[in-house]
């Protein structure tokens, strides 16, 4: 090829490539670019509802920047708050607002980056699709223990609840059950994912799970006529909502700050929406 031909060819390819890069990667490049040049580990633990978003964010970040490492653990909101307060992790997620006591004791800074709901779920094979608050309270207290009492099959109700560290449980207990009793005979599962798996596998189960986690494997139950979905939580019609918080001890700095900023960026909020939550922006 002649020199002229080669340089023309070269220039055209470079132009095309540049156009492609500009056209395709603008949003991603902008929101992730603060991570460039940074190195280190971000330790995250706590709320299990947050985990899908954390995992997706970690994947995007770690795929672009191999010097950044992010470890993600669950444990529940209580664990997240304690661990970040004790300095065992950098970011402690919680599915409930930390109490004033926790905020002062641990000097917490809270960042609410999404809104989520907590809804009742049953197995898709269950014909019961709607319950009143009174029925729900009775079921969880253990006084109603057969599905036929609420219009279902003549089978015992298998209760599933969360462990005491759970923010999801705390929100459900306060807002849906009015701080009523949860039977000690209920099966205890340790995360939103576990609740979903348990209810999906047991035809006579009832439990409560984050609205963002609901998919075809479980069936949401309308509470007082309102079905817990993304739309009803957004509009405020479904009352049992909670914010998804990421908490740090003191003001976040360095890599942690970059990550928190990323959660509020367009990409980050897009991830939250993709996983079934309501972005705050």
């Amino acid at each position, binding site marked *: 090829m002649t020199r002229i031909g080669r340089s023309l060819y070269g220039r055209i390819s470079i132009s095309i490539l540049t156009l492609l890069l500009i056209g395709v990667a603008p949003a991603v490049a902008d929101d992730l670019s603060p991570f460039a040049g940074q190195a280190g*580990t971000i*330790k995250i*633990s706590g709320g*299990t509802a947050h*985990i*899908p978003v*954390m*995992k997706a964010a*970690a*994947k995007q970040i*770690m*795929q672009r920047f*191999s010097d950044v*490492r*992010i*470890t*993600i*653990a*669950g444990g529940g909101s209580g664990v997240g708050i304690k661990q970040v307060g*004790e*300095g*065992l*992790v950098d970011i402690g997620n919680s599915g409930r607002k930390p109490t004033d006591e926790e905020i002062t004791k641990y000097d917490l800074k809270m960042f609410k980056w999404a809104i989520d709901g907590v809804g009742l779920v049953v197995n898709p094979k269950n014909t019961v699709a709607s319950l009143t608050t009174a029925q729900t309270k009775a079921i969880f207290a253990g006084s109603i223990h057969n599905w036929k009492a609420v219009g279902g099959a003549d089978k015992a109700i298998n209760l599933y609840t969360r462990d005491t560290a759970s923010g999801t449980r705390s929100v459900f207990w306060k807002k849906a059950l009015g701080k009523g009793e949860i039977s000690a005979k209920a099966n205890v*599962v*340790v*995360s*939103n*994912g*576990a609740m*979903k*798996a348990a209810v999906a596998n047991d035809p006579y189960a009832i439990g409560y799970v984050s609205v963002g986690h609901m998919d075809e494997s479980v069936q949401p139950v309308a509470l007082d006529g309102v079905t817990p979905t993304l739309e009803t939580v957004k509009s405020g019609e479904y009352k049992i909502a909670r914010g998804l918080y990421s908490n740090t001890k003191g003001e976040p700095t360095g890599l942690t700050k970059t990550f928190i900023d990323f959660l509020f960026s367009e990409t980050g909020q897009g991830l939250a929406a993709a996983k079934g939550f309501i972005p705050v922006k």
Partner: protein
Amino acid sequence: MKARCCDKLVTAWAWLSGLVLTASIATLLGFLLTKGAGTLSPALFFGDTVPLDALLLKRQVFEGIFPATVGTLLLVGLAVGMAVPVGIATGIYMAEFAAPRTKAVFGLFFDILAGIPSILVGLFGFSAAIFLHHHFSGQITPCLLISALSLAFLVLPYLIRTTQTTLENLPRHVRMTAPALGASKLQTIFYVLLPQSLSGIVSGIILSIGRCAEDTAVIMLTGVVATAGIPASLLSGYEALPFYIYTVSAQYADQAELMRGYGAAIVLLAVCALLFALTAFIRHRLADHLLYGAR
């Protein structure tokens, strides 16, 4: 006749037991293998990352069990590496140097250590980590190092016991020949007794490796997490195969993840089967080969 009847019943019961046991295990393992056989492929380990990049640690793996496998390997290596010297040394001491009273007392302690539920060792590791975190350095958290140490404590009694038993069971004439030729006690131990006990000691090491690879209770409390990639340092969180299997079974997000769980279970089973075959091989062939060359 009454005796005949009794005979038949007992024999039937014995055969029934054997049958029930074999059938249960066959069902459990067969279920896992049939469900999970389809998942065994590079994609199980590496997800959508290029295998070579993942192996050279250039790229992280998502949706694959490679990080968990690496975590388990590191854990086993560290734990066994720490436990073997101490365990074998203690075993030698117990078999060769300890006075009868000491032997009895120490033996009691080691048996207790062997019997401690693994969750307690995990609780100890967790509490120790928190204690060190508060009083020594804020850098110390439940991590790879703490887990490895706790696992080392867990398998220590196995190593002690196998070393001690093998040494004690050596025939008397083996013990007598070297001193008869003028060897000192140390020389006898290191040049005669230990080489003769090699197969037993190596079996103990393999047993420890298996124990470290499969343990979940200890690592659950001392630093394993659901997502960590390849651990960056000894003080970081890590993933491990048994914990991966446990997490998937409790909270799989979709069918793909569930299938990866089956695959991971098969991989872990394969590792344990391999170790089992290795032990059998060593017991039958290797010791002779090492000591005396080909026969």
